[in-house]
C-alpha cells in the first residue's frame, strides 16, 4: 500500500510537484502518463525514497519514508524496490548473471541456494539462460531489458518501478517485454511511466500529469 498526502517537492524555483492525496493498493498496476518534464520520474523517485519531499507524507509498505534516515532509506530501497530503467542501466563490467544478482551484491548478502534457484528461474523466464555469462555489450536491446527486469525481480521486491521500460525498444520487442513484465510481476505493486497509450488498458489504473506537474 502506498499513501501520499500533501506532498510538495521542487528543484529550486524551476519546477514543482504538488500532490494532495494519492493511494495505491498493494498489487495494483498503475501507469503514470503525461508530457516530458511534468514530474512523473520525480514522483516515482519520491515514492522509492531516492528523493525526499519538502513537505507532506509518503507511506510505502508501512514505512514512513519521509521520516527515514539515509541509511534506513537505502535499506528500504534495497529490500522493497525493484527498478527497471529506460536505458536498462546494466553495469557493462558485470555479466548477465552478476548484473541480476547486483541487489544482493550491494547488500553484501550471501547468495543462498534459494537465490540461485530464483536466478535460474528468472533467466529461463526472461529467455536469456544461455547468455548468463555474457557482458551487456554482447546483448541486443531487448535482451538487455530482459536482464534489467530479472534484476528488478530477483529479490522479490514489494514494488517494481519502471521508467519507460520500452522506450528504447521497437514495437515488437516492446510487446514482448510488456508481456514478460505482466507474467512475472504477479502480485507485486507495479508503477510504470509510459508514453505508449496502447498499453494503458493492461493497467488497473492510470495517473495523469498535467503540464504544471500537478497530478490530475
Amino acid at each position: 500500500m502506498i499513501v501520499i498526502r500533501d506532498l510538495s517537492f521542487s528543484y529550486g524555483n524551476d519546477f514543482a510537484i504538488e500532490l494532495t492525496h494519492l493511494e495505491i493498493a498493494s498489487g495494483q498496476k498503475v501507469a503514470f502518463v503525461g508530457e516530458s518534464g511534468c514530474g512523473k520520474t520525480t514522483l516515482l523517485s519520491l515514492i522509492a525514497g531516492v528523493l525526499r519531499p519538502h513537505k507532506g507524507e509518503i507511506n510505502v509498505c508501512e514505512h514512513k519514508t519521509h521520516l527515514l534516515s539515509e541509511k534506513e532509506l537505502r535499506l528500504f530501497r534495497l529490500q522493497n524496490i525493484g527498478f527497471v530503467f529506460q536505458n536498462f542501466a546494466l553495469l557493462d563490467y558485470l555479466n548477465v548473471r552478476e548484473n541480476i544478482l547486483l541487489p544482493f551484491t550491494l547488500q553484501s548478502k550471501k547468495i543462498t541456494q534459494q537465490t540461485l534457484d530464483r536466478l535460474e528461474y528468472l533467466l529461463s523466464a526472461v529467455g536469456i539462460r544461455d547468455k548468463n555469462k555474457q557482458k551487456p555489450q554482447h546483448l541486443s536491446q531487448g535482451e538487455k531489458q530482459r536482464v534489467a527486469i530479472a534484476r528488478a525481480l530477483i529479490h522479490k521486491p514489494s514494488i517494481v518501478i519502471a521508467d519507460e521500460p520500452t522506450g528504447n525498444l521497437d514495437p515488437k520487442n516492446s510487446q514482448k517485454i510488456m508481456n514478460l513484465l505482466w507474467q512475472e510481476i504477479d502480485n507485486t505493486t507495479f508503477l510504470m511511466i509510459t508514453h505508449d497509450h496502447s498499453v494503458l488498458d493492461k493497467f488497473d489504473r492510470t495517473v495523469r500529469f498535467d503540464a504544471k506537474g500537478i497530478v490530475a
Partner: protein
Amino acid sequence: MRSILFLAYKYISHNYLKTIVLTVCLLLTTVVPLAAYFIINAYEQHFEERAHGITLIAGHRGNDYDILLRSLYYKGAYPGSLSMQDFADVQHAGQAIPMYLPFTGHKLYAAQEQNVYYENVPIVGTRLDYFSMRNIKLTKGRWPVIWGEAVVGSQVARRMNIRIGDFVLSDQKNLYDITASYPLKMKVVGILQRTHSPDDDVIFVDIKTTWIIEGIFHGHDDLSDKVQKNVVVSKAKIHEYPEITPQNLHLFHHHGKAKDLPVTAILILAKDHKSKTILLGDYQGNERVTLIQPLKVITRLMSLVLRVHAFFEAYFVLVIFTVVLFIILVVMLSLRLRTEEFSILYKMGCRKQTLYAMVFMEFFLVFVFSMVLSVICVALFEWMIPPRYILQLFAG
C-alpha cells in the same frame, strides 16, 4: 568489503586498457627509484664484501679510489707501484699479501682451434696465501709451483674455453716499445672454483712471474761457457726465453736488489687493532706510501654515489608528483564518465561511501598490482644482472 572488492576487481579487469596504462605509469614511476636503490645497495654490499677482513691496503700515494679499485676489483687506473721493501716493512703488523697488477693476458689459441674468443683479462701476480685468505679453491688441476704457471678464474676459463695444459699469453703494454720484453707464454695448471667475485675474471700467477713479464726477471742464453779471460764473448743478439720450462728455469734471474722489486698493493690483515693503529701512525705523512682503510674508502665512495643519487631522488619526487596529478585527473574524468552508473547504484540502494570506496579500491588494486610488478621487475633485474656487472658498469 567483499562486494566492494568484487565490483572494483570486475571494473578494472573489464576496463583493462585503462588499468594497463595506469599500471605502466605507476610501474615506471616506482621501478626506476627501486632499481636505483637496489643498484646502490648492491654496489655498497659488493664493495664491502670484497673488503671484508682486509684491514688496510698499502699503495702508492695518490688516488685512494684507484688503489681500492685496482687491488680489490682489478679495475680502474694504475695507481703506481711500491716495492718489496714496503712489503717487508708492513709485515710486522699481521698477514701481508703483495699484489702486482699492471698486466693483462689472453688465451694462446692453437692454430686448429675454432670459436676463438679474445679478451684481455687482468693478470694478478700474488702469493698462494691470497687464495687461502679469499678461501678460493681449485676445481681442476693444481696450484702453480714454478714460475710461468698460471691458474685461471672460472669465468675466464669458461669464456675462453681454457683447459688444463692450455697456454695464456701476457699482453704487451705498448706495441711500439721495441725495448719492452716479449709476451710471456704461461701454462695453465689449475682452474678455480667460481666465487661470484672479480676473482672469477682474472688469471693468477705467482708474483715472480709478473716480474718476468715486466722483464725484471729474465732468462736468456747461458753465457757461462763463453767467458774468456773474465770477458763474456758473445754475439750482439742474446736470445731471451718467451716461456719458462723446467729446462730453462734455472737461467732466470734478475739484476738488482730484491727489495726494489715492484708491487702494486699490499693487502694487510692486521693482527689486532693496536697493530693497525701503529701501522697507520707509521705511515701518516709518508709522501710515497699510503695506507687506506678499505671500508672507510668505500663509505667515502658511496657518499659520492649517494650525493648523485640525491639528485635522482629529487627528480623522482617530481615524477611521482606528476603521476599523482595525472591519476587525480584520471579519477576525476572517470567519475564524470561514470555519473550515470553511480546514480543507478545509488538509486538501487548503494551508499555514497560505498561508491567512493569502490573507486578507491579500483585504484588501490591497480596500485598494489603495480607495486607487486615493480618488486618482481627489480627482483628480475637483480637476478639477471648480478652486482658484479653493476660494478663493472660503474668501474669500467
